[in-house]
């Protein structure tokens, strides 16, 4: 019932201050530990370097600030989470190699996991002891996720897995996979799928890393060849939610991936700031309007997030607008890097941050549901246009 207030509270400002101070101290310390220019977290060497960082985050209880303290978090509010992200990206914190676990599996665990599952998985996840990758896409199931064919057959004391997952981010370096498997052989499409959590070191599981667009080994294919996963492989059981109901369980994660949590405004704000610095160092009045529009879009994303969080704090649910979010940040990220390319002209080459960033930005309109799928969702669910 309060009126509009766009200021941060004293305690939020203290939190921001603490985060900033810590990052200011910890980032150089990490860089000094792993060598001054850490490699990309999507290479084997870089992954190990980033693991050091993840453990530093965990030690300082910054690995997952919004989680309960018993799982390694700080019971931080959503506002504080936003503040953390802002500061993290503003300080130039590296991409989180634990991201898929923390931002995709964890929210689902909080909603569907038993106490035992939560206790067994989350703490180790926050500590970067278990490293989780996502096993959704398959060679024949990309945009059409419901076409999943990997199978999980119920056997005595566990499941037997067959099939293939692909485009699994950092799969070659992770220890565990969460994914969707067809547990009812007769089923089709969205029915008869189960959401499983699987250690990757089991007999019958082969992981092959392969290069993303920028050549880093950030993708993997995961082959299941009659692999047996015991019920006890995960404390509380390997199935998350009800067997056969995996689709609805997974959709909670989709909401997270497409919506608020994966893409806090901080990342784009930080890119925007770097871009403005770059622009001020060049004489390019021809790009002024595009820079201004991109700046407005960055502001809009930030403000829209504040609006959404206000709603969530007040008890509202996030609906299909998350599709608009996905469209917005992915298009914004491409545009920011396109402008950078125009500014850099011939200097845009090789392994620099803008070049890597450009190639990564291009994945935005593809992953987490292509933008074509998102436009369908927005048109059908928000506007009520007919499916067919």
């Amino acid at each position, binding site marked *: *019932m*309060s*009126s*509009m*207030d*766009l*200021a*941060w*509270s004293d305690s*939020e400002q203290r939190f921001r201050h603490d985060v900033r101070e810590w990052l200011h101290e910890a980032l150089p310390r990490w860089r000094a530990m792993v060598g001054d220019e850490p490699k990309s977290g999507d290479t084997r060497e870089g992954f190990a370097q980033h693991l050091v960082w993840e453990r530093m985050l965990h030690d300082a209880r910054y690995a997952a600030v919004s989680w309960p303290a018993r799982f390694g978090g700080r019971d931080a509010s959503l*506002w504080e989470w936003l503040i953390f992200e802002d500061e993290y990206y503003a300080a130039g914190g590296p991409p989180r190699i634990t991201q898929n676990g923390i931002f995709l599996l964890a929210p689902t665990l909080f909603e569907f996991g038993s106490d035992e599952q939560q206790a067994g998985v989350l703490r180790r996840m926050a500590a970067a002891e278990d490293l989780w990758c996502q096993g959704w896409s398959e060679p024949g199931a990309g945009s059409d996720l419901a076409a999943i064919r990997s199978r999980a057959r119920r056997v005595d004391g566990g499941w037997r897995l067959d099939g293939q997952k692909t485009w699994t981010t950092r799969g070659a370096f992770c220890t565990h996979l969460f994914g969707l498997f067809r547990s009812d052989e007769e089923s089709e499409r969205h029915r008869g799928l189960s959401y499983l959590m699987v250690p990757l070191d089991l007999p019958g599981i082969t992981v092959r890393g392969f290069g993303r667009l920028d050549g880093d080994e950030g993708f993997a294919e995961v082959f299941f060849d009659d692999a047996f996963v015991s019920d006890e492989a995960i404390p509380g059981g390997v199935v998350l939610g009800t067997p056969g109901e995996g689709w609805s369980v997974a959709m909670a994660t989709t909401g997270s991936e497409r919506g608020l949590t994966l893409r806090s405004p901080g990342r784009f704000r930080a890119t925007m700031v770097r871009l*403005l610095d770059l*622009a*001020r160092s060049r004489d390019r*009045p021809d790009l*002024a*309007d595009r*820079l*201004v*529009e991109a*700046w*407005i*879009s960055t*502001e*809009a*994303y930030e*403000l*829209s997030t*504040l*609006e959404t*969080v*206000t*709603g969530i704090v*007040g008890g509202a649910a996030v609906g299909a*607008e998350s*599709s*608009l979010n996905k*469209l*917005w940040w992915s298009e914004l990220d491409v545009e920011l890097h396109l402008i950078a390319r125009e500014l850099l002209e011939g200097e845009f080459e090789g392994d620099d941050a803008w070049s890597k960033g450009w190639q990564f930005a291009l994945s935005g309109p593809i992953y987490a549901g292509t933008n*074509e799928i*998102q*436009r*369908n969702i*927005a*048109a*059908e669910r*928000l*506007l*009520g*246009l*007919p*499916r*067919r």
Partner: protein
Amino acid sequence: MHFAFDPDQEAFASATAELFDDLASPTALRDAWDAVPGALDRSVWRSLSAMGVLDACAPESVGGLGLDELSLVLVLEEAGRVGLPHPLVETASVAAPLLRSPLDGRMITSDLGGRSAPCAADADLFLIAQGDVLHLVDRTTVTVEEAPSLDGGRRLGDVGWNGGVSTVLAEGPEALEIARLRGALGTAAELLGLGRAALDLAVVHAVDRQQFGVAIGSFQAVKHALADVAKDLHFARPLVHRAAHSLATGDEDRVLHVAAAKARASRAAERAARAALQCHGAIGYTVEHDLHLFLKRIWTITPAWGSPATHRRRIARSLGL
């Protein structure tokens, strides 16, 4: 941190929306197009006055409600949504906060936002800038000459004033600047509503219109175009709301925030207009369909109270570009 309107602000806007449902239909808007200059129907205007909308932002000392931009911005979105053919921005956003005497339901227009003044043939009072001074003058002391108007629901007039009797409402560059910012904010809010009106018409059409045996809204080309419009409007709104907050609280970045709001609301509404027309096809390309009423308003108020380019330039300067 709390980025939402309070229940009173929302209720105020809902009440206005209900009023518009009754009195500001497309038919009423068409009547405004057809009205003889000086004979614009005022039933909705009188009701707005009775509800306290017109002088909501006027000081309580002159009978206003003493409210701020946050209370008005949602109302202006609703006014945009129905293409209200009255100078609500000029009266309620720009003039009301400066009033020195009761408004009494009178209609105020101004050419402060452009070369000409909307509804000049019908307005009772005129807000006129001379140098750094803002005068409020009676229509007996001004000359009004009809100016070309693409939008028949917002007919323009060129206003001349010989410097006769006036009430000085404000003085100094800062006061003038704030008046202009209020005009830009109000226009941005109207543009949001207008964009939404165009989108709503397009959605209805896309669901109803059958071609090739199916509703055209089932084609991805139509779906994706309208999804993009929804996206643009969705992300323009918080910019406008934030600008209202910045003006209401005297935020030091208010110029920047209003500029972002006006530039982006214009872009979103312009895109909505384009996409809505394209989805309607020839059916929308005629004055017999209501769509054009909203398109022409979008096209004519986009440059008002600072064109998008003007506002972009302000932002560029402030970003050091």
